[in-house]
Structures are given as structure tokens and as C-alpha cells.
């Protein structure tokens, strides 16, 4: 029997990283049928759900099976709509913009906590990336430490002599071959060294450390860009396109550095074939890609036009 005092984080010395243990998550609900969806509203006479109202717009609640919880962080579920069907891409523009404000609110509130060093807002879409509930939703993890990826982004700032996302955006705009969508405030591109075949980054044109510094119009523009991108994904192979969507913002541990950008990692490399993290990726940490980012971007541009 495990000693529950050992649950939490352990430092993996060889990787120099924290590993979080959340053994209760083994019991979490796994792909229930729609009539038992815990993220649907609670209908009169129906089965109680996580949200005890007949209708709602957006709801956020503490994850019943948290990877992190106070006083060592937090784990929340963000339900985008009370409709069981649809996706982030099919939300109305007004609802998608509202979601940006919810993200901003959660970043502000969780980031202000003493036990939170980094707030990651993300969405896993599709069973290919481990989704256990189909109802449109995302999640928020508030880490009690700075995780490796944002730490690497801070290191990139130091290596490039300033804000790395600002510099990379400048390079992408000069190059021009990997851009897939732009509006007044956001540029979406397949990064120069994409690890996934159809990886894309949506980056604020203006330097904004977090969603808190964004103008209202920039939040609307971010919602627009992300929705167009994911609808383009769905149009690409004419099927629901799995992805991980991660909102990167400034750490909340007192460092003011960061630049809002949203990274999407889709595991599909063709309509039927998944990219697996295998020997090189897991054993050495080096991604092997069989698709050039410039070619992916050209394909994705056409798909976004088709999905508009």
C-alpha cells in the first residue's frame, strides 16, 4: 500500500524535472455515453452532473481528480458550453471571445496565489491525445513550480537577447513561407522547427506577457485566429482533428517575462497515421519529422480557407 504522504511531486534527477503523482486519477470517468456525461447541465429529473443548472454558458470547477491541488497548485475543468456536441471551433464567435475572458480571469486568480508559479491553460481534443470526456472542454493546471517548457522559453529569451516569441515572430514575418493565418492582432504560423507535422503557433503581434495585458480587441482576435485554425484542422482530412492546445503566458512566480502565444500539437501526420513519440523522441529527446514545415503550412493555408 502506498504511503499517501509520498504523493505529490518527485524530482527526477537525470532529467532535472519534477514528476507529479496523482494516483486517484486512475479512477476517473472514462468516455461515458452522452446520457451520463458529467459536463452536461443537470436536467430536471435527470442524473446529477458536475454543473447543477439546467443551462449555462461557461463553467469552471475544481477537477474531481486533480493532478494538483491547494496548497500545492490547482487543477480545474473549463466547460465551454452546455451543449454536449460541437467543439471549440464550432462555438459562436461571441462564446469563443467570452472564453478568452474566462482564461484571463483564471490566470489572474490562480496566478495571484502564493502556491502557484505557473498557470497552464490547455485543451486535449480527441482520444488520440487521451481525452476521457467528449463534451467540449479544456483544463487548467496551476503548477507549484515552474515546469520545463516555460523554463526553456525563459532560457530562449536569454539566448536571443530579448523576448524570444517577439524575435521568432519577426523572423516568420520576414520569411513568410510558414504563415497560415493573420488578423490585426494575431499571426498563426507553422514554426521553423516544428516538431509535429501540423504544429502551429498563434502569437500576439504586440508584446503582451499575459492575457491580462491584452486589449479587449486582441482577445477577440485571438479567439478568431484559434477558431479558424482548428476549423482548418478539421477541414484538412475531413475529420475531427485531434490536438493539444497550450496557452503559454508569463510565469506567475514574480518573473514578468513572457509573451502570450498558443501552441497546438496535433498528433496526426496523415488522415490515418499518428506520430508516436518513440525511441529518438523519448530516449534522446530529439524529434524526427517526416514533413517539412513549409509544406505543412501550404497545406494548412488551403485547409483554413476551406474551413472558414
Amino acid at each position, binding site marked *: 500500500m502506498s504511503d499517501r504522504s509520498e504523493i505529490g511531486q518527485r524530482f527526477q534527477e537525470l532529467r532535472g524535472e519534477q514528476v507529479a503523482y496523482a494516483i486517484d486519477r486512475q479512477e476517473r470517468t472514462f468516455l461515458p455515453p452522452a446520457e451520463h456525461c458529467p459536463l452536461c447541465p443537470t436536467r430536471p429529473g435527470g442524473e*446529477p452532473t458536475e454543473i447543477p*443548472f439546467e443551462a449555462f*454558458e461557461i463553467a469552471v470547477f475544481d477537477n474531481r481528480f486533480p493532478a494538483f491541488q491547494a496548497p500545492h497548485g490547482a487543477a480545474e475543468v473549463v466547460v465551454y458550453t452546455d451543449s454536449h456536441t460541437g467543439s471549440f471551433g464550432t462555438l459562436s464567435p461571441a462564446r469563443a471571445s467570452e472564453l478568452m*475572458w474566462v482564461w484571463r480571469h483564471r490566470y489572474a486568480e490562480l496566478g495571484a496565489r502564493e502556491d502557484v508559479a505557473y498557470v497552464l491553460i490547455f485543451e486535449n481534443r480527441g482520444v488520440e491525445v487521451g481525452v476521457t470526456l467528449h463534451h467540449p472542454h479544456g483544463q487548467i493546471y496551476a503548477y507549484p513550480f515552474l515546469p520545463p517548457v516555460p523554463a526553456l522559453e525563459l532560457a530562449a529569451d536569454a539566448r536571443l537577447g530579448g523576448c524570444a516569441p517577439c524575435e521568432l515572430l519577426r523572423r516568420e514575418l520576414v520569411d513568410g513561407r510558414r504563415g497560415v493565418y493573420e488578423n490585426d492582432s494575431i499571426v498563426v504560423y507553422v514554426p521553423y522547427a516544428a516538431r509535429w507535422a501540423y504544429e502551429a503557433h498563434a502569437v500576439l503581434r504586440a508584446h503582451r506577457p499575459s492575457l491580462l495585458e491584452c486589449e479587449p480587441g486582441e482577445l477577440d482576435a485571438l479567439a478568431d485566429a484559434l477558431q479558424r485554425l482548428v476549423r482548418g484542422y478539421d477541414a484538412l482530412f475531413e475529420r475531427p482533428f485531434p490536438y493539444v492546445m497550450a496557452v503559454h503566458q508569463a510565469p506567475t512566480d514574480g518573473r514578468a517575462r513572457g509573451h502570450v502565444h498558443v501552441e497546438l500539437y496535433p498528433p496526426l501526420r496523415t488522415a490515418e497515421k499518428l506520430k508516436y513519440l518513440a525511441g529518438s523522441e523519448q530516449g534522446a529527446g530529439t524529434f524526427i519529422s517526416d514533413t517539412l514545415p513549409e509544406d505543412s503550412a501550404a497545406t494548412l493555408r488551403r485547409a483554413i480557407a476551406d474551413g472558414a
Partner: protein
Amino acid sequence: MEEHTSHKLDGKDKRSEHFGPIVLTRHVKDDGRALIVYERTRDKSAAAKDRRS
């Protein structure tokens, strides 16, 4: 599949706050977990129209 037991509210600590163009209402579930419900502040007819989006 694991049964989802009741997640009622505890009937306390309900309050609404404004945050930019949204209004949020905080609740506490009977198991102590927080629940926040968000709505965009706008006229009722627009809210009803968007509710199902």
C-alpha cells in the same frame, strides 16, 4: 463506468462579480469544490440566443 454521484451546491457562498464584459457567479459544491459559472453581460435576448451556441 464509475457512477457520478450528486454534486449539489452547499447553498452558501454564492456571489456575483463583474470581470470585463463577463459576470461570474461563485458556488461551492457540497464536497467543497469550487464552481464558477460565467456569462457575458449583455441584454437578456442576446444571452438566450447565444446560450445554445
